[in-house]
């Protein structure tokens, strides 16, 4: 357990310092590098929470595609070295952000999570056992004490089952959104009259 805690705190420091850097560093190129550092740290958080697939997707999409797009954009527009200047709203923005942070932290701390539905089920119910193994894997599931039937049930299930089962409508909507975004991006990038 101490090992996971240590990793968590290292990742937390990296993620928070990185995101402070993203908004404060003047050089936009460095800001985008710091942004990819934050993405990787968030991927590490996902691994800590047993969401291995999500961590890999995070690195693949955010670092491999989105950060690269940002660097492209930074390079193709001018004024990179001193580009990241604040505007007039700096003080009110800081005020609002701090206020929101205080509110959210207060909410998190004062909420009694153990009374919520499903909390504190770890090591008790089957649900928690499956959560503990993240993306279902036969060996680990049997190790967690499930019978063979349930194992195949969960194993063939997982994210894929949810995505094209229960959440098939949002899934299709998102694919439509991606198509629209691709067409829109093309239209915007081509510009008028060309």
């Amino acid at each position, binding site marked *: 357990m101490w090992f996971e805690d240590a990793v968590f705190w290292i990742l937390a420091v990296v993620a928070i310092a990185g995101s402070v850097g993203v908004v404060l560093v003047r*050089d936009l*190129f*460095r800001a985008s*590098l710091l942004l*990819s550092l934050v993405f990787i740290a968030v991927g590490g958080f996902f691994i800590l929470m047993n969401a*291995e*697939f999500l961590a*890999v*997707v995070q*690195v*693949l999409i955010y*670092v*491999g*595609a989105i*950060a*690269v797009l940002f*660097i*492209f954009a930074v*390079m193709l527009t001018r004024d990179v070295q001193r580009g990241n200047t604040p505007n007039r709203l700096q003080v009110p923005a800081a005020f609002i952000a701090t206020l929101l942070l205080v509110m959210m932290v207060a909410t998190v701390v004062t909420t009694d999570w153990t009374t919520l539905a499903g909390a504190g089920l770890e090591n008790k119910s089957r649900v928690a056992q499956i959560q503990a193994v993240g*993306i279902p*894997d036969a*060996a*680990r599931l049997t*190790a*967690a004490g499930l019978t063979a039937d349930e194992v195949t049930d969960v194993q*063939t299930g997982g994210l894929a089952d949810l995505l094209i089962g229960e959440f098939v409508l949002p899934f299709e909507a998102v694919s439509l959104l991606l198509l629209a975004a691709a067409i829109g991006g093309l239209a915007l990038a081509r510009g008028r009259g060309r």
Partner: protein
Amino acid sequence: MNACVLNPHSILGGNHLFRFIYEGVGQMLPCWMAYVVAGAAIMLILINAVLLGAAIVSWGERRLLGRFQNRVGPNRWGPFGALQPIADLTKLLTKEDIVPYGADRIAFTIVPVLMVASLLVGAAVIPFAKDVALVDLNVGVLFILAVSSLTTIAIFTAGWASNNRYALFGAGRAVAVLLSYEVPVVLSVLGVVLVAGSMSLGDIVVAQAVPFFLVQPLAFFVFVAGMSAELNRTPFDVAEAESEIIAGYHTEYSGIKFALIQAAEFGGALVVSGLIATLFLAGWAGPVADWLGWLWFLIKTFIGIFLFVWIRSTYPRLRLDQIMAVCWKFLMPLSIINLIAVTLEVFFLRDAHGVLTTADLWIMAGINIVIAAVSIAVFGQLIRQQVRNSSQTAPASRLVVSGVSTIEVSQGQG
């Protein structure tokens, strides 16, 4: 008597190699120390295997290239010149380590480290014998693709931080190629995952009763072509085309940093060959003796490297627009055809439990080889026409455009 037993339910529990070292060391050391020692041992194996392998690949590639071109290749130092990498490394280490004026010093320094690190992390999940991978991830395939996409950022940073036009050109080209070829490569790997029914590299090897380069020749073709583009190897090496833009993104690198970048390139060839061996040539599975798995794996990896060198020495370099055309108009349709064909075959051939038998795999192989031959012939003909047309018209029109804009600019300044 045995003090330390690794909990099989922990995240490292499925890792045979780690457990073996951990429990062996645990006989004489306290448990937490055995934990650290085992981790360090795994890292030691990984780093040495990949970097030593990269050195051997660099020598082997130069020798092979020499044979292909009717030359001798490096043959002076050691038997058959096998100690040449050591000589190269010594030379590079004694060179001055220059950071160019006006460069972004931190970003410039971080690039070689980033490239080697992403390579090493990717190499960790490849199983090199039965049940022995340094890390056994259940999303192994995606993991390798994800960490190899870190290279994109490293190359971009190299080009930007060097404060050199040619480096920036090279980086821009490299990133364009990497981003485009990611798509067909991932689509072809998807076919493999579909048939194997798992994203873990170990399971994919087990699923290959028939090697997948027979079951999915199209995916194999697309994967090899796409990967040689992602590695910036010769038919696709516009990113470091030395006759056009000096050396591309690593123009300004020298000394140890250059050595690391070179190690990352040759190590990349090694890791990708290992990946090809695992995904398409049935990895450690061999004709006899499972305990000889490492040998079969090495032989298959060598086949992969030989394939790359062969391609490199055979084809001339493509232009950037031709590379893009090959990606989007040739490899992309092929990978989609492969994916659709494989999906349909799996859908109709699988039994009630979703399992494919060896006979099913042979049927798929028969159908897919025909599909591959036909579609490569058809799309090859199409792309050949297209490229021929574009090479007749495009450069001329582009010349006119650039000439006009030059005139406009000069008038504007006057």
